[in-house]
């Protein structure tokens, strides 16, 4: 992938699907215009063709920057890095970031893996930062809940520790 870096985008380029389709490619390298019904029916297209490419996420990050949303842009840049990580590993990494799920060493190893295997320095920095805060807030795997009698730590807690007389707070809606 050594395509020349596209020009920096402005908000006028949005939506890319109508204004700049020529910039859009699938992870398999097909232009977005190749995603036709004929191609679907003939079996040329696979589910892989309908994923977003890291380059596209970078374009959207530029748009987010241009519209004054640096955090959103940072999210897209982490996402661009994560396109390379298989679905199952993404989920297991997420689970490893849950409170008291990992030791400091495990989180460090995960950050190293993000950096070395997936060239994902921004995501790795997020994990390192989590490791630092978890250490300070006693949320690493070796830490005991501060109040063993009342804290709930299990993900499959059937009872929220507390007043759950109705639905669980924050339940989907």
């Amino acid at each position, binding site marked *: 992938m050594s395509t020349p870096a596209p020009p920096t985008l402005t*908000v006028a380029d*949005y*939506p*890319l*699907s*109508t204004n700049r*389709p020529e910039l859009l490619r699938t992870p398999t390298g097909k232009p*977005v215009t190749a*995603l036709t*019904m004929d191609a*679907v029916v003939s079996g040329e297209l*696979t*589910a892989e063709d*309908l*994923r*977003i490419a890291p380059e*596209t*996420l970078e*374009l*959207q990050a530029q*748009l*987010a920057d241009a*519209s*004054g*949303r640096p*955090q*959103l842009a940072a*999210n*897209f840049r*982490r*996402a*661009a*890095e*994560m*396109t390379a990580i298989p*679905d199952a590993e*993404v*989920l297991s*990494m*997420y689970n490893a*970031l*849950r*409170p008291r799920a990992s030791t400091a060493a495990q989180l460090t190893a995960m950050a190293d893996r993000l950096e070395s295997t997936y060239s994902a320095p921004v*995501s790795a920095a997020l994990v390192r930062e989590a490791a630092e*805060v*978890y250490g300070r*807030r006693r*949320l690493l795997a070796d830490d005991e809940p501060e109040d063993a009698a009342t*804290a709930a730590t299990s*993900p499959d*807690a059937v009872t*929220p520790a*507390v*007043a759950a007389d*109705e639905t669980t*707070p*924050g*339940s*989907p*809606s």
Partner: protein
Amino acid sequence: MTAVAPRPTEQARRSLRTEALEARPVNLDGFVEEWPEKGLVAMESDFDPQPSVRVADGVITELDGRARADFDFMDSFIADHAIDVATTEASMALPSVQIARMLIDPGVSRAEVIAVTRGLTPAKVLDVVKLMNVVEIMQGMQKMRARRTPANQAHSTSARDNPLQVAVDAAEGALRGFAELETTLGVVRYAPLVAIALQVGGQVGRGGVLTQCALEEATELELGMRGITAYAETISIYGTESVFVDGDDTPWSKTFLASAYASRGIKMRFTSGTGSEVQMGNAEGRSMLYLEIRCILMAKGAGVQGLQNGSISCIGVPGAVPGGIRAVAAENLVASMMDLECASGNDQSFSHSAMRRTARMLPQLLPGTDFVCSGYSAVPNSDNMFAGSNFDTDDYDDWNTIQRDLQVDGGLRHVREPEVLAVRAKAARVLQALFEHLELPRITDEEVEAATYANSSNDYPFRDVLADLTGAQQVMDRGVTGLDLVRGLEATGFHDVAENLLTVLRQRVSGDLLQTAAVLTADFTPLSAINDANDYAGPGTGYRLQGERWEELKKLRHVTSATDPETEVD
């Protein structure tokens, strides 16, 4: 030793008026006195921190009276990710009353307000909105809403998890105007079939509708990755560290998850709301709104494009304390002030009183929000598997009439019955053909007929649950994707529906729907806070209900014709 003696009960004579009042539905609702020390208070509490910020070497070293060494993880995350370090000291130096006035001053643009709010701490935000009454909150919302054009979202579920019902009610809902459709399950194993039904039904009703299925994270993400659903919003966050941990997450785990969704091209928003922390017993002595503002800033720091808030499933808590619904309106405003998409609640059973139910939603309906309801029940509430919404199908005509009375756009419209029946019948036939094509359990002609004319799940023939669950498992085992659905729709002759779905899937490659407050219009144009930015600048500006759309909203089920008063307008 404890001894409990019976309490004497007195039987004083009551007036007939008191009896009439006692019989009013509002008296079935629960109300409690405030208890600020424990956080059982909406937004005015002496126990909330005072605003403050200190920056040293480009790092926030003090936040709302707490030194960096004492930060809990919410403080840390907000300080390091949400607040703009470069501008925070300047923003914080502005008097709260000045910021509050900027929010309602038509002469100050949305962008100018955002330039200030990006540097505010949670306590400062609270200090600002505390100055605003509910009308001012609405004025603020009118300007600060991210997307210029308001929209609405529906729940389409079934008490029997009947995929056919979900499909036809999704189709009708899309036809009536909902831009997003959400479902969930009673029996979780039904999810693949119901998610397919929602997606397909939605595309029959109106091409470009976005769908999601609320499930535990792994399955929800998997359905999204496969292109069976289009977005996600059931990613809960909380305002205190202890409750966040009770929910088995942290700001970092949720941030990672947000990026995971974006990495698969899937639109996503977080969920939070006033009352959840005190309901979970760990409000740490802070008011409900203060804690919700922390959630909103956390969401912003995570870089997620939007938030579903407005108390959501804890609405009974703010609903029971003084000023609680004002606080709920304020939390929606704060989400918009933080430049996030806001799906503004009104999605859970709230009151026994129809009058209270209506009053509760006016602060969102009147100014307009990105999604006025984050779940208007597009099925009767008895079929609502999110435990009931503030509005359901029985309220369609009332909602349409209120839109017409006040000339506001709540995202819905009246649709004539023949059109409703046509899309319901078509959605049923499409799902029937698709199920057969995918070798899923048969949908009979009798079911199609019932679905066309049904109201609730009781009006459908029973399905063979065993066969359906086996079929649902096959969908997962065989790795059926959105592309397979497109192929099946095309192969069974429903070319238009196949095109609609393919176009929605193609959006994923462009990532356009990842931008703030994005929806797809009927002609598949992504409409977001970038190309449909809210440009409200006082009377005569911003989104106005006029022209073709206003003509559409003038229609109701029964309107007497002026030309021939013996007939009704069709």
